[in-house]
């Protein structure tokens, strides 16, 4: 049948063109992403903003179910846990008392010295809605966005320690790149030693401490806090404790509870005044540029 054959052939041609066009379009998208990454990333954030909150109805039952199971497992050891918690509470009461006394002395000494503290940090509490879902990057999605005053680069903490930084903000969602992500690099200070270093994520649970001046003087157990260098993070947020990894490198045991990340705080740093240019006493002032 010549006619049949003819339609079949044209069908094949249409198919081939579609395949070619799809492949070309996808390739083009990838190339555009490499050239103009921010625009595509904004587009991605818009897509996530549109789709992911709608998925929450689907996620809710599964999340609830797994949490029930893990809760049930913990019932098994409820008695021993209870005992442990009581003992811990006793110890903590002691510490609480000590802390109160210290706070009072601290306040008295501060008053004596006339210290002016840095402005306090406001925060927005957010719920973690989704995981990154990919084994190659570590991030979570929060249910707050531009409408809640979230800006790229803000720090997020859980109750105890630093979790990550905001990278990608939609209208009602925002993405937090966790400290464990390979692209995460945070300037820190090691206390009480005082050395500065960078904490680099490497897709493992314990990020690496890099760029130490004298690694020998840093011992496991020292506390690590953010240094605030580069204006990326506010200073003095707890990151974790120094530990030595099985590969012999210095790593950090994170203070934030990454296993059960449910609520986080996004810190809104009060805009500190930046010192612009040299003082007028030293040398001539640079000529004013027109606004």
């Amino acid at each position, binding site marked *: 049948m010549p006619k*049949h054959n003819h*339609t*079949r052939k044209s*069908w*094949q041609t249409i*198919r081939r063109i*579609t*395949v070619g066009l*799809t*492949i070309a379009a*996808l*390739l*083009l*998208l*990838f*190339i555009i*992403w*490499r050239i103009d990454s921010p625009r*595509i990333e904004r587009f*991605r954030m818009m*897509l*996530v903003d549109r*789709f*992911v909150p709608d*998925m929450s109805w*689907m*996620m809710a039952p*599964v*999340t609830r179910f*797994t949490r029930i199971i893990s809760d049930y497992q913990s019932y098994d050891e409820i008695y021993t846990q209870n005992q442990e918690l009581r003992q811990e509470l006793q110890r903590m009461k002691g510490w609480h008392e000590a802390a109160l006394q210290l706070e009072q002395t601290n306040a008295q000494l501060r008053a004596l010295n006339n210290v002016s503290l840095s402005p306090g940090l406001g925060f927005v509490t957010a719920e*973690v*809605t*989704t*995981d*990154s*879902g*990919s*084994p*190659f*990057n*570590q*991030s*979570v*999605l929060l249910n707050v966005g531009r409408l809640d005053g979230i800006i790229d680069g803000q720090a997020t903490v859980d109750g105890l320690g630093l979790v990550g930084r905001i990278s990608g903000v939609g209208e009602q969602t925002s*993405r937090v790149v*966790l400290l*464990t992500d*390979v*692209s995460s690099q945070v300037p820190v200070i090691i206390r009480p030693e005082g050395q500065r270093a960078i904490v680099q994520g490497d*897709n*493992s*649970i314990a990020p690496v401490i890099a760029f130490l001046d004298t690694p020998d003087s840093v011992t496991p157990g020292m506390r690590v806090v953010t240094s605030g260098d580069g204006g990326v993070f506010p200073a003095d947020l707890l990151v974790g404790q120094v530990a030595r990894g099985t590969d012999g490198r210095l790593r950090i045991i994170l203070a934030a509870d*990454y*296993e*059960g*990340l*449910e609520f986080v705080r996004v810190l809104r740093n009060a805009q500190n005044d930046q010192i612009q240019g040299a003082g007028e006493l030293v040398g001539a002032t640079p000529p004013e540029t027109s606004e």
Partner: protein
Amino acid sequence: MNRLFKIWAMRLIYAALGILVLTLPLLPLQCAPARIMSPDLFFCLTVAWVIRQPAGAPLLLVAALALLGDAILMRPPGLWALLLVIVTEVIRATSATIRQRGLLFELGVVAFSLFIMIVVQNVALFVTFADPLAFPRLLQFVLITLICYPITVFILYYGLRIRGVDLKKLPDRLGKIK
């Protein structure tokens, strides 16, 4: 008519399963980096489907779902979708042969194509000055995905009755049964 209905039902089920499989890893159950990597179930689903029912997972649907996956799973947009589309097109063209040769041969084809995809992806990332992915983790990822492949096939075969059609009864490209 019946045939057409069946194909569209299959496409619908494929799309629904695809979205489910893509969003499953998004569940915020554990935010710490897992010790065992999660497999690419969407890859398993798509390839298994294309080998059994090429009409049930049409090109544009595969491309759209893969692109959605790229967007929400924070992969370089377009790259993995592009590779998946090319691989599924090649497999689609040879699906009858692959079906005839049995499951072991099929697993070999899948392993080979996944390996090629990973290599090309890393080369593309390297050439365009993006960060390539770490190789030990990729190897683990390939292994786990390959372990999940037969399971996916099993579920498709017995759970959803997505089975390869007998070649003699296979309709031609116009949907006519010979």
